[in-house]
């Protein structure tokens, strides 16, 4: 099948590649760019394991064609850590609050939470739960993911993180 040339900015670097028009963005990211942190869990836009940040929005890269991302700015999980390579507040929050188990949903979840905290820097528990409802987790029951995001919000805002009483 004839291939199309695409260019985009991924995690701050210009990238390019040849793709079929039907190539999914997630496959371009995983196969062409070898950024395998973005996962595939359902291929039907339900699970959110493939969530990336595309031009300031959380999108599920399993239902975007690579050609649709032409010229766009993309952040994947590999672009979330601090510039010095240390864990970002969110990554640290997930570890401190035990917000992950098998780790398969985690990249999508963190990338989504990253955008959520930009949209709403001080979300309530309800807003967090609603804000991550497009990302499924089979291991944690979400409770600790909510705490992880609260932890990160507090850290980013320079406020004190208080764990809600059980």
């Amino acid at each position, binding site marked *: *099948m004839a291939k199309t040339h695409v260019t985009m900015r991924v995690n701050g670097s210009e990238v390019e590649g040849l793709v*079929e028009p*039907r*190539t999914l963005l997630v*496959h371009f990211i*995983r196969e062409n760019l070898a*950024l*395998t*942190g*973005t*996962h*595939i*869990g*359902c*291929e*039907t836009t*339900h*699970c959110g*394991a493939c969530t990336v940040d595309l031009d300031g929005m959380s999108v599920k890269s399993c239902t975007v064609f690579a050609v649709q991302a032409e010229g766009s700015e993309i952040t*994947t*999980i*590999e672009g*979330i*850590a601090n510039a010095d390579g240390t*864990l970002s507040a969110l*990554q*640290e929050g*997930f*570890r*401190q609050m*035990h917000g*992950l*188990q*098998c*780790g*398969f*949903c*985690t*990249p999508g979840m*963190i990338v989504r939470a990253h955008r959520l905290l930009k949209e709403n820097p001080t979300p309530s528990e309800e807003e*967090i*739960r*609603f804000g*991550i*409802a*497009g*990302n*499924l*987790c*089979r*291991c*944690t*029951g*979400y*409770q*600790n*993911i*909510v705490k992880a995001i609260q932890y990160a919000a507090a850290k980013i805002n320079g406020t004190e993180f208080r764990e809600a009483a*059980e």
Partner: protein
Amino acid sequence: MNDMTITRAEREAKLEGMGCKRKRVEDIRFTQGKGNYVDDVKLPGMLHGDFVRSPHPHARIKSIDKEKALKVPGVLAVLTAEDLKGVNLAWMPTLAGDVQMVLADGKVLFQNQEVAFVVATDRYAADDGINAVEVEYEALPVLVDPFHAMDADAPVLREDLEGKTEGAHGPRKHHNHIFEWTVGDRDLTDAAFRKAEVTIKEMISYHRTHPSPLETCQCLCSFDKVKGELTIYGTFQAPHVIRTVVALIAKIPEHKIHVIAPDIGGGFGNKVGAYPGYICAAVASIVTGRPVKWVEDRIENLCATSFARDYHMTTEIAATKEGKVTGLRVHVLADHGAFDACADPSKWPAGFFNIVTGSYDFPTAHLAVDGVYTNKAPGGVAYRCSFRVTEAAYCIERAMDILAQKLGMDPAELRLKNFIRQEQFPYHSALGWEYDSGDYHTAMKKMMDTVDYAGLRREQAEKRAAFRRGETREIMGLGISFFTEIVGAGPSKNCDILGIAMFDSCEIRLHPTGAGIARMGTKSQGQGHETTWAQIIATEIGIPADDIMVEEGNTDTAPYGLGTYGSRSTPVAGAAIAMAARKVKAKAQMIAAYRLEVHEDDLEWDIDGFRVKGLPEKFLGMKDICWIAYNAPPPGMEPGLEAVSYYDPPNMTYPFGAYLCVMDIDVDTGVYKVRRFYALDDCGTRINPMIIEGQVHGGLTEAFAIAMGQEIRYDENGNVVTGSFMDFFLPTAVETPHWETDFTVTPSPHHPIGAKGVGESPNVGGVPAFSNAVNDAFSFLGSTHIQMPHDFWRNWQAAKALGAV
């Protein structure tokens, strides 16, 4: 090491041993997208395989034409059953003693069954190839309802078994019958029912569902023709078993098979068995001489690889008027689908379902299970539970509520009256198990006190009165579950998989500088073994957990083990870790005695080293002992400090717990709200409380899903109608309730560290708590049992049937 400025508490803390909420070492890579899952592995020249699947649930295959597919750009090969017959792999053995088609041989027996395997240069080309394979089918009558599987005129599903009156587990009564399994004393139980003052009888169904880990099943097979070696990367919960099975069926010497299970994105039982994809990818690699990857998509995962449950349990309890149980009789109709591919220990066709007497002192019981074939996907895996234990717990916990209702007793009071008492442990159940330890009354009372059970019942009575007066349309239910699990398979005297005894293993190798590696027969899929296993070692031998690397999943380096499922890792491998550590420690003690110039018996263990009794300043730490062990061992002693342990447990372990669900249901819409969920778990000694709590949260969320809507459902024509995440209920953060966790600690008396295992308890105990809450809510309107799953629609239907709407 013996720095006296460091307090004992600081030395303990530095170890991050058992009981510590140690943060997980795995998270460093997972939070950065640096995990290494099967689909992340790429090999040079790698091809992709994908399946042509049957649209029919039951049909004869008239022809398969692969010519057009082979002309599709990028397609290199199309395999069918005929091709596999050449290498005697058209069929494969299942773990349950049955055989299963790898690719459809003459006919298909369930919708989405694997018919042909297309191998191509990339995923897209493989998909193009699938669309070009032409298969001609002749539809056959479809058998969906297991209750009609043994009708005289039921269609013959398994033509390969025609005339076979003996199956892997005894006589077959019908052409669609697989086995009958009976346990207990039938005469004594029948007598108990004849004498009973009160009896109940109910058909309690536990519907078909699916473990559905977020990462599907996948593998990458690479056959090296020159060396004759096969390397398989795969999502395997039990890598060594896969190696042995491949050796047995593919006739490749076992030392030439390398199985690697890298990071696994959840398993929940789905990744225990062997699937056609693994066989086809291996054969395709042998045929093409190139590595072949097979990655299931979600629809294939839900529709083809192992379902769970599908047990239909006719349950009877005999009791006195005062509510003392005197007998239990259960008959199970087990729908196994087209092939019996249950992932149970081989001698247990219904797993450990005979734990169905639960937490109660039944003087007698009898159980019979009939397994049948239907035109549904094969499987019967233990979805986050020990083998068929969640079915058993649901059965008895639902039945106890039904009995309480009939007696007009409070269900908590009925349970307290019938619990096995603390002094009865070790307790021999009527269906053959020896419960190791328990303190049920304490756990139950702690639960009742914490939630103010009496207050909740008063509130419920007020709400019911208000409902009757027409002042509210909301009803309130309290769902109690007091479950006993049986985990840690298992003792070789009664547990094996295809003849392989179900021990597990650990090898500890300490390095000269006082760090080390532990290699395991288990395989984490999210349980956090890299974190917790090191904690056991830290406490046992005083090396900080941070200095122990835990390695799993490589059959070339790991000692042989049976893997991770059925909550067996802590009961079996956890014990192996402690035993290996103690072997290391015994040698360390000899070294310390030599160095400190005392007899070994004059030494005592002190957190991270040995101290001479009565002479606190004479101390030798483990870090120093490691150096000495390699570089200056006592005369006559071999250098080195390492040990391996293969642990064959003397018994299972029996975790238990007391759960309560408080639920409100709107009768006009069927919409429910879980107002409160309290879960008390007793898993014996607690290794990492943070991880335990996380496991309980996750298991409860799965239980919530199963009880409230998650189902693999077939229509009357055998079509799967819940084959994607659109229809298969996986709760999001919005629906998922808030979880309250609590615990008691009753150590296992036979386990080296007293641990019992916890990962599956919340799934086992959670399902009955939710279902009992729904049933309790409706009970005052006259219902005794409403089948799961309790989604809004079914709740509304129940309300309607009871005249409430």
